[in-house]
């Protein structure tokens, strides 16, 4: 089920008649049968978008299509969606089984059939043995799965997840995101989830949509977006550790950071912002791009160098290099930059050049 958002806009009106544009003219297509992540910092409108897709919020303008069907006026109960809330919204007074069966009751499915269905789904998400527990007796990860099971049990056309991992601890988060990926793949349901955690989005999404203040920044496969950020915001938002930002300029077709000549660039002379991924540095014997190492962190096979900014002693940037290099704090290192790990943006607009 392909989902199309056409000029979707949501304006909230506060009591004092102040208007806040939460979602601004969103125009995207979410591909069928895939896992799509809506990504952005908090307040970017991603949850609002999700709730508009669910029907719980009504758009101020624009339309939502499930396939060819315009569902904009359709109330949530008739849209055939499954929704997993951030805090799961499991009914505390019902057992796991009752929670999962609740959506089936509403469509008046035969008791025996729904029991089997619930068990099947519960097994799928790996909580088949917890059916008689109450939500309070479950761990966060288990609750999360119950919520997913409840959303999936009625075979929705679309599965929506709101910050599905935010309430879990780090270890569970890893485990669960794989689980979500697996479940999505097994069921093949078009799934949209919302997160502010880019790593989460990158790791499981087939496709991501990066949002900022209600406006789409970029849409694409995670790696594609990572490799080719459309603007400074996307570049900065994706990747851990984050991309390093340098002020630079293009002079006579050469890209310069301070007086270091980094690369050849075929654009007009201008001031630019240069982003270099930490893994984009290559240590070389000779280069004008050199700086003093401040700290060295070695984790397993990688070494992260925290390096003083060549032009500004107070700032540092990060470079990830092979652990084989024996570098000590205080050493001066020289770099080359891998061209495909370097992105150049317009200083004013932040657009990629």
């Amino acid at each position: 089920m392909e989902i199309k958002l056409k000029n979707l806009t949501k304006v909230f009106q506060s009591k004092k008649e102040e208007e806040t544009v939460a979602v601004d003219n969103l125009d995207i297509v979410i591909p069928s049968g895939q896992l799509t992540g809506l990504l952005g910092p908090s307040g970017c409108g991603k949850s609002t978008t999700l709730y508009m897709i669910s029907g719980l919020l009504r758009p101020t303008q624009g339309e939502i299509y499930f396939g060819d069907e315009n569902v904009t006026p359709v109330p949530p109960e008739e849209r055939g969606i499954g929704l997993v809330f951030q805090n799961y919204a499991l009914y505390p007074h019902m057992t796991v089984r009752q929670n999962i069966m609740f959506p089936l009751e509403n469509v008046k499915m035969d008791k025996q059939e729904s029991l089997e269905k619930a068990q099947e789904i519960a097994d799928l998400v790996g909580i088949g043995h917890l059916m008689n527990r109450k939500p309070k007796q479950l761990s966060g990860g288990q609750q999360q799965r119950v919520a997913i099971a409840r959303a999936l049990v009625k075979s929705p056309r679309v599965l929506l997840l709101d910050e599905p991992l935010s309430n879990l601890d780090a270890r569970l988060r890893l485990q669960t995101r794989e689980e979500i990926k697996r479940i999505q793949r097994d069921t093949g349901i078009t799934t949209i989830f919302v997160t502010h955690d880019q790593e989460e989005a990158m790791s499981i999404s087939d496709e991501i949509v990066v949002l900022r203040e209600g406006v789409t920044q970029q849409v694409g496969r995670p790696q594609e977006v990572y490799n080719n950020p459309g603007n400074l915001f996307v570049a900065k938002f994706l990747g851990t550790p984050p991309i390093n930002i340098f002020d630079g300029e293009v002079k006579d077709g050469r890209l310069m950071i301070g007086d270091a000549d980094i690369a050849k660039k075929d654009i007009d002379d201008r001031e630019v912002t240069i982003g270099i991924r930490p893994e984009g540095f290559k240590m070389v014997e000779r280069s004008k791009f050199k700086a003093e190492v401040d700290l060295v962190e070695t984790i397993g096979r990688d070494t992260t160098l925290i390096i003083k900014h060549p032009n500004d002693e107070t700032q540092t940037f990060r470079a990830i290099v092979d652990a084989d290099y024996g570098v000590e704090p205080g050493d001066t290192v020289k770099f080359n930059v891998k061209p495909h790990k370097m992105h150049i943006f317009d200083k004013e607009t932040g657009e990629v050049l």
Partner: protein
Amino acid sequence: MEQAIYGNEKQIKRKIFIRLAIVYALIIFFAIFIIIPFYWMLITAMKTLTQVESAPPILWLNPAEWQWVNFSGALEQAPFLRFTLNTVVVAIIATIGTVITTILSAFAFARLNFKGRDLLFMAFIATMMIPGEIFVITNYITVSRIGWVSLDQSYFEAILAMTVPFMTSIFFIFFLRQAFKTIPNELYYAAKVDGKTDWQYLWRVMVPIAIPTITTITILNAMNTWNAYIWPQLVTMQEDYRLVSNGLRNAFDDTAGRIMYHEQMAASIIVTVPLIIAFLLLKKYIMRGVSRSGIKG
């Protein structure tokens, strides 16, 4: 397509509108059901005695015809000013006492672990099931033995007799215990780590958090005083010591025992209005207080 969507939109809006209209209609229906007796009280208080006794009854009175004189008439029937003052004094003292004893015991029941706690609590609850009327006689003898009721009773003694027996309430202990129980244990541990004693914790942490419930208790208790009739009548030995309800009940018998409905209703309004005003002003607190005490088992 555009047209169809528009139509659908309209249908949904109409559906929502109709549903809301039904809800409002139901609410208004019940609201009328609630309000009618009050209206009747008000309109009766505004009538002349002849109008009160007319058949068929007068359902609506032009405000110009309202007999405001009934209110002054009501006030003349008994020293209401004096009674009101007494009532306020009694309400304040009884309420302060009730709030203190209630806070202390609710704390013990909600937070402290002691042998026999549940048994004692059950015993407390069980006493709520005995009709309170049966207490009156014994308590009268008790306060007399203590010396608060005597023929040369002083005002102070009268106040003691009217307040002390009501300085605690099992219902309110129950009520506040529920509210205290919703306060997370972590706060208690935190206070312990900070070196706070139970006593400090109670007054510095729990009581401020439970203020809405305590406010509710205060208002409910004051209301009880406002409506108290039998006990004040019994334990006061001078007219000057009595409370508003005594005035209400005593003042409107004419010589032959006829009830002056219009003035009685006027007096009812006079004594109820302060309660309603207090209630309206503190409605938010009461709501919060109630929700705190009720939602957790």
